[in-house]
């Protein structure tokens, strides 16, 4: 095989940590301002993952980027992760900034709060994407042009929305039932259709700026090869064990196509697969091997740039897909009654939260949108006793719901109490209140 026929390797790593909820009690609701999140636990987990994964993995990636000219990677850092960097890990943030300085790292856009807003509110969704893009630009000096939605949730409509927002690329799961036997290793395009006028109007307010791209390119995760690393790397019962960089590279080459999109959680390195599994040495040896064999890595934007074929196949996702579970659907977050009710109740507060104009309450409301809160309530595999399938910081899905519903109740009460105006006291505040009621 000549180098021209070698597929590109597109590595994208997801970096995210949720704010886990505290053991809030009903007696605290409406009593002042109870803390919703478990600062101690969040700090402890963040530091643990920083030491095991973020810091060593970033150091290694930086070294590889500086050593091998044809090596590059993409990251999507959730806004709530960046918030936690501020609180618990400035060292982690600066290590990502050093990666950005190599000029060989692409940062992707996502919803700031790693939220499920795309399922519930277009307005909220576009606002969050906008906030995230701005933040990424501030921190890393580049405006994202490729979008990836929370947990790779994707549909035809979402991809058109992303296009109208100014994105030229979007990532999605290469789901078997949508590929119908086709390879995920080429760029795809969503079917063209016109979105309703209101959608265009809402999007217009949060546009990225610049020209709206004519087309949006969908890059699909090659889940088999991605999961060989992310899930199976240390599985001794797997036929591929132990996975060497040589063998894995053979598989990549055999898989062929334009680009092999290896999408995975960054925590794969050092946290899901511990250091003693050899995951870091595996990662270290790949770029050198690729260099020798004439294989180059490319970021999502480069993959799109290098696609010169006239025909781009259509990826048709009428129903939302995601990268979660065997089902590749929304059931990890929206399968049972408590999950649906929790999300419904949360978004029923949107109008009140936004009218209130209190940035603190708005932030709390948005922090409750993080998808993990709903994931922890999942009971899909719960009855089978397969507890470990769903990693959760809580005892049970019901404990997750208890904490969440308490936070939500408190937020609701705070939205219902008359707004405090600091300088306004006595008569003046009364007048203010009557005025507000009239208007």
């Amino acid at each position, binding site marked *: 095989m000549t180098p021209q026929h070698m597929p590109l390797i597109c590595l994208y790593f997801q970096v995210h940590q949720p704010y886990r909820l505290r053991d809030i009690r009903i007696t605290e609701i409406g009593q002042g301002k109870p803390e919703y999140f478990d600062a101690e636990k969040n700090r402890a987990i963040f530091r643990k993952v920083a030491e095991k994964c973020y810091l060593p993995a970033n150091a290694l990636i930086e070294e590889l980027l500086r050593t091998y000219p044809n090596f590059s990677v993409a990251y999507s850092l959730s806004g709530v992760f960046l918030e936690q960097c501020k609180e618990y890990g400035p060292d982690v943030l600066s290590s990502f900034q050093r990666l950005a300085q190599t000029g060989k790292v692409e940062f992707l856009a996502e919803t700031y709060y790693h939220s499920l807003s795309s399922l519930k509110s277009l307005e909220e969704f576009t606002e969050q994407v906008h906030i995230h893009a701005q933040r990424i630009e501030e921190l890393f000096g580049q405006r994202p042009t490729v979008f990836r939605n929370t947990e790779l949730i994707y549909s035809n409509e979402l991809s058109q929305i992303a296009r109208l927002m100014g994105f030229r690329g979007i990532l999605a799961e290469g789901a078997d039932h949508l590929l119908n036997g086709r390879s995920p290793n080429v760029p795809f395009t969503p079917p063209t259709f016109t979105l309703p006028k209101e959608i265009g109007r809402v999007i217009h307010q949060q546009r990225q700026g610049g020209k709206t791209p004519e087309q949006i390119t969908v890059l699909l995760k090659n889940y088999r090869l991605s999961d060989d690393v992310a899930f199976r790397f240390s599985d001794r019962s797997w036929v591929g064990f132990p996975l060497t960089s040589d063998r894995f590279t053979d598989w990549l080459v055999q898989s062929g196509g334009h680009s092999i999109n290896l999408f995975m959680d960054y925590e794969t390195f050092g946290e899901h697969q511990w250091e003693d599994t050899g995951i870091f040495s595996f990662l270290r040896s790949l770029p050198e091997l690729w260099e020798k064999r004439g294989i180059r890595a490319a970021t999502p934007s480069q993959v799109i740039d290098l696609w010169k074929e006239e025909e781009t196949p259509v990826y048709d996702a009428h129903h939302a897909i995601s990268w979660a579970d065997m089902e590749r659907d929304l059931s990890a977050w929206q399968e049972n*009654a408590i999950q649906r009710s929790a999300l419904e109740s949360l978004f029923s507060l949107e109008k009140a939260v936004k009218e209130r104009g209190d940035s603190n309450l708005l932030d709390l409301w948005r922090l409750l949108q993080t998808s993990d809160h709903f994931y922890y309530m999942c009971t899909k595999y*719960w009855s089978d006793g397969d507890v470990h399938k769903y990693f959760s910081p809580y005892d049970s899905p019901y404990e997750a719901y208890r904490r969440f*519903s308490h936070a939500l109740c408190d937020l609701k009460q705070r939205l219902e109490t008359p707004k405090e105006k600091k300088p306004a006291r006595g008569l003046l505040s009364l007048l203010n209140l009557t005025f507000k009621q009239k208007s």
Partner: protein
Amino acid sequence: MSLRSLMFGWEYPPLHLGGLGVACQGLVQGLIKNGVQITLVLPHPVPTESEDLAILSPTEKHVERIRVQSMLSPYEGSEGYAMRTVRMSKELQQIYGADLPEAVAHFTAMSVDMTQDTNPDIVHCHDWMTYGAGMAAARYHDKPLVTHIHATELDRTHFHPNEWIYRMERKGFQAADRIIAVSNYTKNLLTEHYGIPAQKISVVHNAIQPITAQDREPPIQAISSAPKPPMVLFLGRLTIQKGPIQFLEMAAAVHRFRPDVTFVIAGEGNMMAEVINRACAMGLQDCILFTGKVANREADKLYSQAACFVMPSLSEPFGLVALEAMAHGTPVIISKQSGASEVVRHGFAIDFWDTEKMADCVLTILREQPLAQQLRSEAPRSLQHLTWMKQASQVRSIYQSLLS
């Protein structure tokens, strides 16, 4: 090859709600369905009741029952037994002996006498009072001994055991070729407090008999137009093990928040007077109802009417009542110090001492309809895989492993 098990049990069919009798019945029926022939040896607490037990379903024809005259009652330690013998006629006392050690010795001797002609492959005994009988029979027949543990003396007394009973238990565990514990919770207790090696103990969780539509009373909301105040249920013996005081503490915390909630304490026991006094001292007299001992039918009704069921046991080897409540579609909050918490997925498990959090869970269930509804529908469904047929097949495998 058909297996023959010589089994020493307590009561058949069960006289008590939940607990050992129900578990033994389920296990015996499950073993029969798994092709095991059982000779069941039973002590019988009240001689006149023995005639009632003739009612047998056809599938139980394999059970050859031998009754042994005995005054033993499964839930009583030596203290309760002394009280009982005092109330007996002098004549009977002479036959059975005035103290518990003597009664157990008598039961043991008679049981062996009566099973001389049986030809078992395995001897299987349930809880400490049958261990002497089981050990003697296993020796006599020269067959492997399985001791099944449903509740230890440490559970019943909150770790203040009667030394004699504790020693009887340990002797039984040591003599056994295999121990079957009803939960990992109990298995750990045996390794930690009785010094039994873990590899000698197998865990077979209890199962639950399927609930028929007739057993399930319609929820109270459906038959009454006016919404009744929500009710929170305790069902169990009023002994230290079952945590009735913890239930009161939980109730007081709920009451402060929701004075409309009522509480039902169903069951009797040596702490009855204390629990009533404490309830009054806590100002709960107007919202707590004590029913005394309840029959099956009444229990079904209580489960169906309860907004949630709380089992705050201090140490519960299994806790079948929690599963019975779930089978009736009642949301449950159970003690983490229980075997049931190993199988209950759709419910809350809380440390027994954290009564504030227990109250919080009750209040959350009362406030959050989607939560209550999901627990009502999911919990019974999740029990479907926990059948006696399946659990008994595990016991059968244990038998086979001992014989091969």
